[in-house]
């Protein structure tokens, strides 16, 4: 899976939970889920669970704490995929 494909899948996952559509249009590595996209912490859990299903990986507590930006999430997903 290329990074573009991964990013595209991640964008599809987060879209239903995003409150700030403008920030979604300007999505980049630094985009912060809570500060920029205005996803609430409860829906951030849903993002993590959807990521687990989509990529067939397990997000542990340590990974969850880091999954706050698009870039960090892509890194974690890549790392977990590599460990499979």
């Amino acid at each position, binding site marked *: 899976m290329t990074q573009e494909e991964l990013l595209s899948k991640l964008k599809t996952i987060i879209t239903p939970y995003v409150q700030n559509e403008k920030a979604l249009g300007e999505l980049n590595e630094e985009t912060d889920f809570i500060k920029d996209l205005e996803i*609430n*912490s*409860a*829906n951030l*859990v849903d993002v*993590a*669970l959807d990521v687990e299903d989509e990529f067939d990986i397990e997000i542990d*507590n340590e990974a*969850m704490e880091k999954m706050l930006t698009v870039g960090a999430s892509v890194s974690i997903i890549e790392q977990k995929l590599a460990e499979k």
Partner: protein
Amino acid sequence: MTKDNIIQELPYSKPFLFVDEIIAVNEHQIKGTYTFREDEYFYQGHFKNNPITPGVILTECMAQIGLASFGIFLIKNSLNQNQLSIAITSSEIDFYKPVLPGEKVSVIADKEYFRFNKLKCKVAMYNANDTLVAKGTIAGMAFQQKK
């Protein structure tokens, strides 16, 4: 964590405690009851001369049993509960029957997931005749309290 001290751990008190008893609880499901007293404060205004338990109060009762009580049991001793605050984060409930003053209801909540301090459950409320009163999905979270 036993059934009795779950209620003691709840962060509610009169007139906003809507749990009398936890009947059964395990890792997958909780069952609890509450009897709406004839003199609950909200019957004074809901409705004028026609007291019926508000849907938001039925939702609150389901959340106090299905999220707060269940969450306390599931978290058990893994976290220091004194440092946690809780919040309902979503609810989608359909209502089927009115609940009148004096009625006893049972709430059953089945865990969908409990991950990263978020608890999501399918909940159902039944009246004393075992007739479905309300049903839906609720979710809530526990947060570390900011010092």
